[in-house]
């Protein structure tokens, strides 16, 4: 695709025109945005500049104070710090996610140990990541702003962007978790080869054994029983973990779904957003307030009754 750069020509003109103007002007324009204490003096100079010009500018507006400080990118408003914190959390969560992937892979590999160390590592990482996501999501709500000002539009958009990042993170975490669990399950079943809820009479024993040791647990059987108990307990814990994690992520997803833009819909249209910025900010706030307090998250998500949000109340 062809383009044409006019910057050089532009600069040439700009420099040429600059030298035509009164030389005193160059010093005033180097001032950064200070308090209006220095204002009056500078303004006086610039108004006389306007009169000294050989050609009349089309706009006779007073250039105003803001132009003088616009040489450097100025200090952003306070809420930008919040958004940067969230962005940093997202980064951290991403790197933890890579660590988690490694930990998953390691745990799945055959090893001599009992794998408890790996398990702890995985648990810890998963908690950390979920924590980061949850904290970020709470911080996200602080970015909400009321009123149809330009700044609130920027805030809303930053919010949406971060919400999308967080949602993607939670989904990625979920996927990693479920793949890991699936593989783990496959492995465990493979190792023991047989259903662990075994026949206490020792179905694996030979026929001789059966007749001899009918009601008595052999040592072997005891060991196997203990192992299966431990395994069941572990399974229960895993399931408990999954349930907790699912619930947590469900809550987060729901909160985020208010803010995340549905791609391909009208709200994802730039021209629509230009017209409708003010209203969407308010709506988002209202919906966020409603969500916290909704008892049955999943049922309400299945039946989206209002807009693009599923709220049961």
């Amino acid at each position, binding site marked *: 695709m062809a383009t044409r750069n006019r910057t050089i020509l532009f600069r040439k003109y700009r420099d040429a025109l600059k030298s035509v103007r009164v030389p005193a002007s160059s010093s005033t324009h180097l001032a950064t945005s200070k308090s209006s204490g220095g204002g009056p003096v500078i303004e006086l100079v610039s108004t006389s500049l306007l009169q000294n010009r050989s050609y009349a500018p089309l706009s006779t507006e007073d250039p105003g104070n803001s132009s003088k400080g616009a040489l450097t990118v100025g200090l952003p408003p306070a809420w930008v710090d919040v958004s940067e914190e969230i962005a940093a959390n997202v980064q951290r969560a991403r790197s933890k996610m890579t660590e988690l992937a490694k930990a998953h892979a390691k745990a799945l590999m055959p090893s001599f140990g009992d794998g408890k160390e790996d398990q702890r590592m995985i648990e810890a990482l998963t908690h950390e990541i979920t924590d980061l996501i949850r904290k970020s999501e709470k911080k996200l709500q602080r970015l909400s702003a009321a009123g149809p000002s330009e700044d609130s539009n920027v805030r809303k958009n930053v919010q949406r962007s971060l919400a999308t990042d967080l949602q993607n993170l939670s989904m990625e975490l979920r996927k990693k978790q479920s793949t890991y669990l699936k593989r783990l399950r496959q492995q465990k079943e493979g190792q023991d080869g047989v259903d662990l809820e075994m026949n206490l009479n020792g179905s694996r024993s030979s026929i001789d054994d059966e007749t001899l040791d009918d009601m008595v647990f052999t040592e072997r059987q005891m060991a196997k029983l203990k192992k299966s108990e431990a395994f069941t307990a572990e399974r229960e814990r895993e399931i408990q973990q999954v349930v907790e994690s699912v619930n947590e992520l469900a809550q987060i997803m729901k909160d985020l779904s208010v803010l995340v833009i549905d791609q391909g819909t009208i709200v994802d249209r730039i021209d629509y957003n*230009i017209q409708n910025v003010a209203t969407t900010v308010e709506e988002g706030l209202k919906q966020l307030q409603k969500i916290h307090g909704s008892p049955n998250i999943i049922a309400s998500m299945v039946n989206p009754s209002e807009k693009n949000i599923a709220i049961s109340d």
Partner: protein
Amino acid sequence: MVLVSAVRDYINRMLQDISGMKVLILDSQTVSIVSVVYSQSELLQKEVFLVELVDSISKSKESMSHLKAVYFLRPTPENIQHLRRQLANTRFGEYHLFFSNMLKDTQIHILADSDENEVVQQVQEFYADFIAVDPYHFTLNIPSNHIYMLPAVVDPSGLQHFSDRVVDGIAAVFLAMKRRPVIRYQRTSDIAKRIAQETAKLMYQQESGLFDFRRTEVSPLLLIVDRRDDPVTPLLNQWTYQAMVHELIGIQDNKVDLRSIGKFPKDQEEVVLSSEQDAFFKANMYENFGDIGMNIKRMVDEFQQVGKSNQNIQTIEDMAKFIDNYPEYRKMHGNVSKHVTLVTEMSKIVEERKLMLVSETEQELACNGGQVAAFEAVTNLLNNESVSDIDRLRLVMLYALRYEKESPVQLMQLFNKLASRSPKYKPGLVQFLLKQAGVDKRTGDLYGNRDLLNIARNMARGLKGVENVYIQHQPLLFQTMESIIKGRMRDVDYPFVGNHFQQGRPQDVVIFIVGGTTYEESRSVALQNASNSGIRFILGGSVVLNSKRFLKDLEEAQRIARSSTSVV
């Protein structure tokens, strides 16, 4: 993909090298250009956290020096003035100026003069000056489109603006493709000739350096034709999805505003129909109404299956799977309701206006012979109380275009009947249409009854029996494309500009219809491109017409022609 990806590439390049938080400032034209190819969420990914219109941004006084401003504007005098003021009252940290077309030196001068604070970092021309509604179809959304129907003396400056906008748009398409074409135009159209010559002047003289691209073996072809050579296509009712939605409801920049046809919940008032973003639409946009109904039903069934399994959550696994698939589910839900709503509403309109009945006659008028039967059919429909005014008007127009020379008495009868039955009818509109686009004015063989080959083709079609009586019609464009493919486009009908010359077939062809394109025609182009004939066609126009818009242009032109003393 060509047109859409060209504009996307331009936008990507604008944003990629500017780090940090940005504000994107557009004008009322570039907002359409950008909105059809780029989404809000994509902008957010590029850290564009505010989008504003250049005329409304002046009103705010908030200083936002932590944002870098990216302007993407058409290089119009109004925009240059806006920029002047905004550069004098800088609010943002940096200013990056991108223009969708060529700047004049004086304009650069004015901007340089206003940039006292030296906030402008770059001034670039990025030639995304057209609205890429579909991969091979672009439009220019020219507001006073009707002016093409009037002779130059009526409003010379207005016509010059129109012509300039068209030339700018076409130039941008070729700059985006980095090609310079050989140019041909429809002989019988003054406006087509004018645009062809001005485009040639721009590309080969005024800015020949800019257009001097690496030459390929065969140059692409630019063909400028006039809407009035085929006035039938925009008048016909449509039965393929995209064309039908535009005809019955209206599509603007790939958006459908349902508010004009009823009350809908807030999140369904406006919907998006974009082949790039909606897989169902992409697969069905050229299908006919009956098939669409079936496909939508299938989609609804699938969706309900998913819904049922979602309600049947019993195990932990089910819960987990549901959470994983939730975003997909939501998207599916939105898409299903969108298409169901559209098809439902259109079915209602078809029923109310008895469009199947009307359309059958329309197709007969457009495709087959039999003046006597046609007259009878049209008369019956005019007498039918359920037929709406606009449909009556279209029927009489279609009849008049076909049988204007045969039986003038009967034609008069139809005019009178139309006037008496339709109180809002502007008298003389049909006659005005005939003056604009009657058989004496046309070049192409619109009814296939001039050219021996066409007569034979029509006969063959009639004998074969048409798949669906409602989509018999082929726009004239189809024949034009065929003649290009076969290398049989006659010089006498479509001469070359100046000393342009082309031996052999081109591989890339851009056809521009002055006065507007229709979705029926863009469908024809898309299907032709899919057939791998070795030639890639791109279609463009000043607007995208439906019958309502075409009639509005006609009425407006008639009104001006009447009030203007310089028109006979």
